[in-house]
């Protein structure tokens, strides 16, 4: 019988490698992505330019890679920040209880009550749009569900008999947190962190597409697709198809990684 966990590990490894390669390649190509060449423009995909050329003579492959790289970097930054917020607020909630718990729970409900996209737009506007606007927007809106998860886990752990017993035996809370809570929480937290990536990347792209995010001179996927809108009716399908398709692939890869990571980190699960 094949070992699904081993397969998951192999997949994780190659997915990481691929994403890293895209990030590095895109970063290196960011210059090429903005190079205009009016000598040949509006070329449909051909062997030399597999993703085609746009109306300003820019190589769509370079633009797409640069955009993906930007997406992954922004996604990574925002996912980490929002996961950190979730960890801090979730633990604070569970450990202090009382009005702190009530307040943070209320805040979670509040953030979840406004559609993400609208809230990101508002935060982005408050921060003056651009890179920092959209980063702040995405980072400040994606923590609630993970915070809820963390809160539940910590409460459950603190209610465990051995935990209360150790407390009574004089083990300090800080030590218990470090030695038991963190190791217990880490797998779930890591999985949650990876699973934030897809949402973060998609929301960044959407907000940029709407014009509240990354500035138009950056080769972001949202910008590329927004620009392509004007050329779709004239049949330049390649301007929208490949950038979108590769974005879906990158996001799906992150989602798949999160799922496999969950499988790997589960303490013991039945073979299915």
């Amino acid at each position: 019988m094949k070992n699904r966990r081993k397969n998951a590990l192999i997949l994780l490894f190659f997915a990481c490698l691929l994403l890293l390669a895209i990030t590095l390649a895109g970063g290196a190509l960011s210059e090429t992505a903005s190079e205009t060449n009016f000598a040949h423009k509006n070329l449909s995909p051909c062997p030399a330019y597999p993703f085609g050329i746009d109306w300003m003579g820019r190589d769509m492959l370079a633009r797409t890679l640069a955009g993906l790289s930007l997406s992954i970097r922004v996604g990574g930054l925002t996912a980490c920040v929002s996961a950190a917020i979730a960890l801090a607020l979730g633990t604070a909630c569970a450990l202090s209880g009382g009005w702190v718990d009530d307040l943070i729970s209320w805040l979670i409900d509040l953030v979840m009550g406004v559609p993400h996209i609208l809230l990101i737009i508002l935060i982005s506007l408050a921060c003056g749009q651009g890179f920092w606007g959209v980063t702040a927007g995405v980072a400040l809106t994606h923590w609630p569900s993970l915070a809820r998860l963390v809160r539940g886990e910590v409460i459950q752990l603190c209610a465990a008999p051995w935990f209360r017993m150790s407390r009574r035996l004089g083990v300090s809370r800080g030590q218990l947190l470090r030695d038991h809570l963190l190791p217990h929480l880490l797998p779930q937290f890591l999985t949650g962190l990876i699973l934030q990536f897809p949402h973060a990347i998609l929301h960044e792209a959407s907000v940029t597409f709407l014009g509240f995010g990354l500035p138009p001179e950056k080769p972001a996927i949202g910008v590329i697709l927004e620009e392509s809108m004007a050329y779709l009716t004239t049949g330049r399908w390649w301007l929208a198809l490949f950038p979108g398709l590769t974005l879906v692939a990158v996001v799906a890869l992150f989602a798949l990684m999160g799922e496999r990571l969950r499988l790997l980190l589960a303490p013991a699960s039945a073979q299915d």
Partner: protein
Amino acid sequence: MKPILTVENLSVSFTRYGRGLSRVELNPIRRLSLAVEPGQVAAVVGASGSGKSLLAHAIFYLLPRNARVSGTLLYDGVPLTRPLAESLRGRELALIPQGVTYLDPMMKVGPQLCRGQRDQASRLRCRQALGRYGLGPEVEELYPFQLSGGMARRVLIASAVAGEPRLVVADEPTPGLDLRAAGRVLGHFRELAGQGAGVLFITHDLNLALTVADKIVVLQNGQTVDEVPACALQKGEGLTHPYTRALWRAMPQNAFDPGEEVGGP
């Protein structure tokens, strides 16, 4: 008499993932053998975690999909295959489970008992089954969360025997009940056996098993280690297997000492 159920060399195993990449083979049941005759109550006694519930589920072909089963099951002398078991479930084969979690929390007791049949005859049959265990027709209108522990247990028995079972498998049907209520439940098993059914009573409680069973099958680590008549165990006579002897000595009325032999009473 020809046994209604024969289990020969039954093994059930699972593969689980340990931490990381390691895989662990679990063998909760290994080469288990027993036989139940019509009109007989056979008790399977084993410590908690000795795979007793899996035995019940294996007979009904209700094990999780990742379980691997080997060995022979015979029902009334013919091989008990999955299609045969599926056709017998709820008619000749009846399972009495452990507690109220085995009732659908969103459905009233009456419809659950009737298994979806709405005709007058089956409704009458259900009402009679309830009545047999001292439950009035008003119970049909209750949801499981409204039942007390004892009531729930009686509903489970009633729903299992609403057909006319030839083999009843009861899986730890008494935990959480006080002695009197448990005694009543066990009385019902005796009654079923009296009507000619074979009863397989799975429990961890040897004392309880002795009050009702005709014979005791002793399990250790998922393996049959001994099969003795109940009367022999009651008197403590003719116990050859050391584990059985240890079990017997561990009973409260017999010195309560599971240790090595120091001379019995």
